[in-house]
């Protein structure tokens, strides 16, 4: 057995000898022995520091609120993958990888806040003034304001305002919470003035604000949220694996299943004859010249 490094790399995160594993200078075993929590360790991992009690509580709350969300793209991804019965990690990995520009875009929300807070500092504007500028610039350009609106919780995301309140209760509201609150105020005011419906803050808008105020970068915050969701998606996948039918196509189930043949609706080119090989070149040339295929190009 070789214990040589697989990749020769310098790292500032950790080292591991035959004696111990050291994270940012702290012996991992010692951290656990002292009674620090997993959330504490996440602060050490991403921020190289032990958090305050309140900060640890906030992370614990945020991750608890974010972990389970029933049928979101992440759970659907996990269930879809597990119907083929690969190893469970494939389904879990797929669920984590559903997080992108629309589903739980935590990093994008953080980058947006950082960009405008930096502008406030550079242009000598208050956070309130800059929040209004953000809202106006996004809405004028028909660009979605990250952290606002949730397609299923149309009255407002049930996790969002409680996260804000928890942050206030724990007295760890900083620049980010002040900015996010101002953003929401101007966002609601503008939509109301335009006679548009109420769109509440979502769990990314609230949760990511809290994560930023307790010192996590946009990408670190995104990692915390999306990987945490992997836990619950593993449960969804496991439920489907142990109690559901592989494929999800059985005709013997009382309910129409996910990939029952009757679920397929086809809207592509009409059925057509396959040309013989000796007709092929002329057929293909004509097809290309006519260009009808272009409407189906993806």
């Amino acid at each position, binding site marked *: 057995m070789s214990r040589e490094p697989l990749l020769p790399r310098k790292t500032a995160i950790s080292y591991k000898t035959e004696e111990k594993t050291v994270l940012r200078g702290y012996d991992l075993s010692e951290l656990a022995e002292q009674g620090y929590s997993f959330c504490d360790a996440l602060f050490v991992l991403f921020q190289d520091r032990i958090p305050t009690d309140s900060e640890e509580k906030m992370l614990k709350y945020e991750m608890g609120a974010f972990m389970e969300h029933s049928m979101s793209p992440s759970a659907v991804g996990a269930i879809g993958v597990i119907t083929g019965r690969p190893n469970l990690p494939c389904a879990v990995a797929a669920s984590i990888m559903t997080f992108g520009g629309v589903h739980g875009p935590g990093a994008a929300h953080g980058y947006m806040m950082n960009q405008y807070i*930096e502008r406030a500092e550079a242009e000598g504007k208050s956070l309130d003034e800059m929040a209004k500028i953000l809202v106006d610039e996004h809405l004028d350009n028909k660009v979605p304001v990250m952290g606002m609106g949730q397609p299923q919780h149309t009255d407002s995301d049930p996790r969002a305002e409680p996260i804000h309140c928890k942050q206030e209760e724990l007295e760890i509201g900083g620049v980010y919470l002040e900015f996010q609150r101002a953003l929401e105020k101007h966002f609601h005011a503008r939509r109301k003035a335009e006679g548009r419906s*109420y769109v509440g803050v979502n769990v990314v808008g609230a949760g990511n604000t809290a994560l930023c105020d307790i010192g996590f970068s946009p990408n670190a915050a995104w990692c915390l949220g999306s990987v945490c969701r992997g836990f619950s998606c593993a449960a969804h996948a496991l439920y489907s694996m142990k109690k559901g039918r592989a494929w999800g196509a059985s005709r013997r189930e009382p309910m129409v299943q996910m990939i029952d043949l009757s679920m397929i609706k086809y809207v592509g080119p009409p059925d057509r004859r396959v040309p013989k090989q000796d007709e092929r070149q002329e057929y293909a040339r004509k097809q290309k010249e006519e260009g009808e295929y272009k409407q*189906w190009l993806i």
Partner: protein
Amino acid sequence: MADLGDKKGIGNLDDPKMPYDYSQREYGTVETDDERARFQWVSEVAYKNVHRIVARGYDTTELVEEGYGVVDLLFVDFQARLPLIEEEKMLNYIMILSLEDGLSIPAVMSRMVARTKTFLTQACGAAVLSFGHAYGAYSSFGNMLDGYLSEADQGADLKALAEALVAENLGCDHLGVSDLMLKDPAAKRMVARAEKLGVAGKHIEFMTHIVAAAKKASDKPVDIDLLGAIGATMMDLGFTPEATWAILAVTRSFGAGAHYIEEVEREEYTHLGETLTPKDTYDGPADRPVPPIGERDKHARPAQTFTTTEWKKAFDQRKKLHGSGFAIIEEVEDPSKMTGTKSVGKKLH
């Protein structure tokens, strides 16, 4: 359900700032909406019934019976058309060159997964994941090309457009021109093959101008690389940047499968806790005692800042910590052109 009625007094949930009364939130799932058509998998690509599988209108069994193969099927699935013989030959050529790249990232990913003793499919999947916006950057490359070529469609000069593209993108990971293939003729031979087969079009022509402009602008020798040659040729074959990205990532995954197999055949599995990271590769904080948890308040420094100036100072400081994420900005965008399938489905009543 009566005992579920009074839900006051839970944490902050009675806070007046809540957008609605949390104590009165309903239980239970949402009833089935029988006003709308039931869920369907809507597709333009393919359908199947008990006896047929039909892709873009062609019965796939009849296609293969008639001698069409997987390379032809790529045109059918992604472009809804059968390729010319020359186009099929060209895509074959590209796929052969894309199959293997030695111990580069997809193979390394595959081998790393293999060492954990798992299915081959996981290793192949990991190899697909290694195609990004630097390695195998076909999406970034193609969209860059198309962005500039859309101006050519409005009459702009190709040479001038190429110079503008190079001025903006020289040194970028996705330019398709670099010093990677100064001694390897494969990229140039691919372009020559496309020209010989008569499938070279505006993308290859534009790429020729880009290479010339890059050679002029660069202070070191550069030439077309495989990204540039494959990307431009694939687009001349009619594939979109995203289709190109996916097709070639999957193509390489076959090679990655072989690397998985060889790794399992020739090497040992790696176990949790086995791999060491010597201290001389570590440049983080020096070893330090874990403070007693009772002294947390004495050691902990809160992260909150309360003015933008404080925030800026803290942010710049945090950038210095490797692994914190503050020093990088990742582009996370919604690539979809539209959402929803409003053109299908109908009310049941």
